[in-house]
């Protein structure tokens, strides 16, 4: 561990270890940094030792490459959002379908989140038209869908990441119409994040851990999301400039 808020993963097997998974969820939960050293991806492309997901048999980043080309401008930003919404929608679909020790109240929240994320995904699919031609295969190393604690911790990771992703990518939008749509979605993700955090630790200060949410660069978001995607997420013509938000951690 480089520091309390940075997790350095140097080989693929580490991604699948219980210790690292706990650290990953904890660190993403506090807005920390996940560093994937090049050795991770190289080992992923050669084999999937140690990161076999029981559901699909394929680990993160072992599949075909999905490239988002930022020379497409606003389309690329919306494609990136589409990728994240695919991930969230699939996650909550599995959560709702699984038997688990979630409470009845928690199941109602999960059912709403499933609906919202599917609607986001399908909306972006329509909006993107022929630019929505990719379909990602999610994977959930270490996530136990029967276990309330594991499900809620993963949900918190996804919702916080979604908020940070939209907040950070908005600066690359050139159309006010697209910016408005992103704004309509990101606040609902913020409502989700708050609800999940309050389910985990009711009536605590956790629902909003900072006066400012994070704004993460697309590269930082992709690094975190890759841990849940079999396909290899890649960028072409990625923006080199990134304007930080108040937390200056993007």
């Amino acid at each position, binding site marked *: 561990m480089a520091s309390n808020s940075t997790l350095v993963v140097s080989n693929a097997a580490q991604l699948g270890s219980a210790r690292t998974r706990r650290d990953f969820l904890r660190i993403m939960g506090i807005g920390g940094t996940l560093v994937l050293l090049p050795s991770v991806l190289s080992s992923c492309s050669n084999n999937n030792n140690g990161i076999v997901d029981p559901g699909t048999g394929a680990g993160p980043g072992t599949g075909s490459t999905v490239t988002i080309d930022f020379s497409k401008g606003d389309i690329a930003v919306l494609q990136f959002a589409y990728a994240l919404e695919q991930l969230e929608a699939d996650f909550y679909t599995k959560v709702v379908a699984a038997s688990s020790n979630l409470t009845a109240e928690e199941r109602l929240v999960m059912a*709403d989140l499933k609906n919202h994320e599917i609607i986001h995904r399908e909306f972006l699919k329509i*909006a993107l038209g022929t630019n929505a031609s990719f379909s990602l295969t999610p994977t959930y190393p270490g996530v136990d869908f029967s276990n309330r604690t594991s499900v809620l911790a993963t949900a918190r990771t996804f919702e916080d990441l979604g908020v940070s992703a939209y907040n950070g990518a*908005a600066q690359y939008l050139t159309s006010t*119409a697209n910016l408005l749509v992103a704004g309509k979605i990101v606040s609902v993700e913020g409502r989700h994040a*708050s609800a999940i955090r309050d389910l985990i630790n009711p009536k605590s200060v956790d*629902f909003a851990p900072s006066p*400012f949410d994070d704004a993460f660069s697309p590269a930082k978001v992709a690094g975190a999301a890759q841990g849940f995607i079999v396909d290899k997420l890649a960028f072409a013509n990625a923006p080199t400039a990134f304007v930080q938000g108040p937390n200056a951690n993007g």
Partner: protein
Amino acid sequence: MENQTVLETIDPEIADRIVARSDEISQGASISAPLAAALALGSVPIALAALSKDVGAQSASDVVDVLQFALLLEYLEAEFYIKGTDAAGLIPAADRNIFLTLRGHEVTHYQTLRTLISAKGATPITKPTFDFTAKGAVPNPFAAGNYAVFQQLAMAFEDTGVRAYKGQAGRLINDKAILTAALTIHSVEARHASVIRRLRGKKGWIVGNSREDLPAFTQGIYDGEQNTVHSGTDAAALGTNNGGVNAVTEAFDEPLTKEQVTAIITPFLA
């Protein structure tokens, strides 16, 4: 341009934006020379063309105007939570974590906005005097025993804040630092709204245009939230097998214009 067309092929909102912009112009906002010339010539098509270009090129004074407007809202929220958390016998011990967090955040927001405004070379507006009974529409929310009223107003203010920031984002599109700062406040206001709503036994998200159990005079906070058409694409049918049209309205928060927000908060200005 391809990157301008993805969601703009049909854009019913552009008319609203142009109207909002022309309202500002009639109220004395600065306009570009080509637009002034077009208006002087009385040519609507030319003026519209110039205006649409203005929409995408907001001035520095426009950014300051957004920040001042946000500052007013944050003053309102901060004073509300300061008075609430300072009031004896109002907030049950178990709920104090939430309201102390809200207080701290809103104070940080207004302090940050003041700094940003000063950095733009402008003078932050001074805090107005607030009337949290909305001129008698509700009982004193800080009086012992009136916790229910206090919670109702908290929900009203937070749901308003989310919509207010969202409605101003487009005016910040050319100032990436301010845009990003505003967005990171915007989503925190959404977290606030969600926790208050859930504390009150409601869903964390807005269903249709429902104000839930809030008094009728707050309906303006929720009007328009039932919209399902976003940038020309109607999402209503996506609710089929996915929670129906209610879920579609929950999945998208809607903006409010500055004028709409002003109408909502005016009763709270003494």
